[in-house]
């Protein structure tokens, strides 16, 4: 956002040999990953596979045991404005109306004393923020609900507010942790289509963590799966306490429009082959493959030695 590229080969997000262990428990084992601006990466993995740990490392909430995560060449230290975040539980500010929720980020960046003694320029700034917020709310079809409170909204609407809230600060990368997990089936479909629409419209870079393979296939322009079920030359005998690696990394249909011609089910049906492979290779504990067998066909994949 504010700094030039220094490393990472011009990639937006660059994860280099990241490992994470808690005490003796190895969670992540040598994660290498590069993400280009504009990619919609869906990330799947069995529960307990380390998805969330990887997610928190990108967010900056978790410090990797070794290796580094960089965004635009800057090492990620803590959660900051370069990342936007959308949680499953919405995490909206309960005490603020929808419009205030959306405005809160940019408004808090105006120094407190300027907000206390409103000068003309501050008033103008706040008005600009309000206009921008309304514009976004219109584009997520929530303009009518601008003065309602979060508790008066449905789950789908709350999640749209949360997405809008994140968009306001123009993050370089939007991190979504099971965002639609709490929504019912039909609301979920709407939300998915809607997210794709926004992704196209604002040219966003998204990392979308989910445990739902179908959802990941339908949404992602790039499909990533992590898995603990693997071995390499170093490991012999019974495999225990192995951290997750990226076990699957492929390009999916980059043209979003095609998705609007196919229904969710049809699209997932078309990619049943991928689903089957991932189910076997990444989700089945009894299937241990060698790291060399990983299917990493994406152009930015790192092929393990």
């Amino acid at each position, binding site marked *: 956002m504010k700094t030039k590229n220094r490393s990472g080969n011009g990639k937006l997000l660059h994860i280099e040999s990241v490992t994470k262990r808690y005490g003796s428990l190895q969670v992540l084992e040598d994660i290498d990953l590069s993400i280009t601006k504009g990619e919609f990466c869906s990330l799947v993995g069995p529960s307990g596979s380390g998805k969330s740990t990887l997610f928190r490392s990108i*967010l900056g*909430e978790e410090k990797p045991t070794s290796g580094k995560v960089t965004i635009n060449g800057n090492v990620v230290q*803590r*959660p*900051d*404005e370069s*990342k*936007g*975040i959308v*949680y499953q*539980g919405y*995490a909206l*500010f*309960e*005490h603020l109306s929808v419009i205030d929720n959306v405005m*809160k*980020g*940019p408004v*808090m*960046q105006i120094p*407190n004393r300027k907000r206390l003694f409103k000068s003309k320029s501050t008033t103008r700034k706040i008005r600009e923020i309000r206009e921008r917020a309304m514009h976004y709310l219109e584009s997520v079809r929530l303009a009518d609900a601008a003065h309602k*409170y*979060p*508790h*008066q909204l449905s789950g789908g609407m709350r999640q749209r507010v949360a997405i809008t*809230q*994140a968009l*306001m*600060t123009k*993050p370089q990368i939007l991190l979504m942790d099971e965002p639609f997990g709490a929504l019912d089936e039909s609301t979920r479909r709407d939300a998915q289509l809607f997210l794709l629409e926004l992704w196209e419209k604002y040219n966003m870079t998204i990392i979308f963590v989910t445990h739902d393979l179908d959802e990941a296939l339908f949404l992602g322009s790039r499909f990533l799966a992590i898995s603990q079920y693997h071995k390499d030359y170093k490991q012999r005998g019974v495999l225990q306490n192995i951290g997750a690696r990226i076990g699957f990394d492929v390009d999916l249909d980059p043209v979003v429009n095609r998705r609007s011609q196919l229904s969710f089910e049809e699209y997932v049906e078309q990619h049943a082959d991928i689903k089957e492979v991932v189910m076997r290779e990444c989700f089945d504990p009894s299937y241990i493959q060698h790291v060399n067998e990983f299917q990493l066909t994406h152009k930015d994949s790192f092929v393990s030695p």
Partner: protein
Amino acid sequence: MIGYYIIALERHEVNPKEKLMPLPTQMIDKFSDLATEPSKRTGEILLVQDTVTSVKRIVVGMILSAVVGLTVGLSMGLFPGIGALLGPVITFTSNIVPTALLPLLLIILGVGDASKIGLIFLGTVFIITRTIYADTLVLRKQITKSLTLGASQLQIGYEIMLPQLMPRLIDALKLTLGAAWIFLVAAEAIAGTEGLGYRIFLVRRYMAMDLIIPYVLWITVLAIGMDTLLTYIRNKLYPWYKAEQG
């Protein structure tokens, strides 16, 4: 109540000087005497004096608890270091039996207001701190989100957490108010010169049931009144809260 009345009537027929079960009329007379007649010794109306003294002690104690509990609990939630440091301490101190500290408080703070307020404070502050800490942890995703929205730690504290913790603090106060009354009555009973608890334990030696029973009811009314007032304030100031809790 009807049962009480029948038995009391019977006992009064047998013994006109019956003290153990006063008739409702006697209690009303006694209570209205206390509420209207100035005391011969001090010239003050005893009920008013007792009520003002006790309510003042409870309110001051609870306000102290609320301020300290909110500040410490919020700091523990906002800064993981403080949380890790104070967590075990609070767990330990909240298990100390406050009434066991009463002799200590009486020695250090004397028999006046300070020891009563001190007991109410010690009896409630740790529970309130723990509750606020837990509430902050429930809201911690909002802390992370606020950081990604560019907020400073101070702003997260004052603009995001504090307004949302206030109704939760009121709930914590409602929860600990019952305990506060117990501590107050206990402290006033053991050593004191005025207060509702002092009065009932004072007249106990004359078996003045016609005063004790109305006083117990009066304390109950006060407790219910305080609880209702807190609920009203919470719903008035934080209308979004009740709906959010479902």
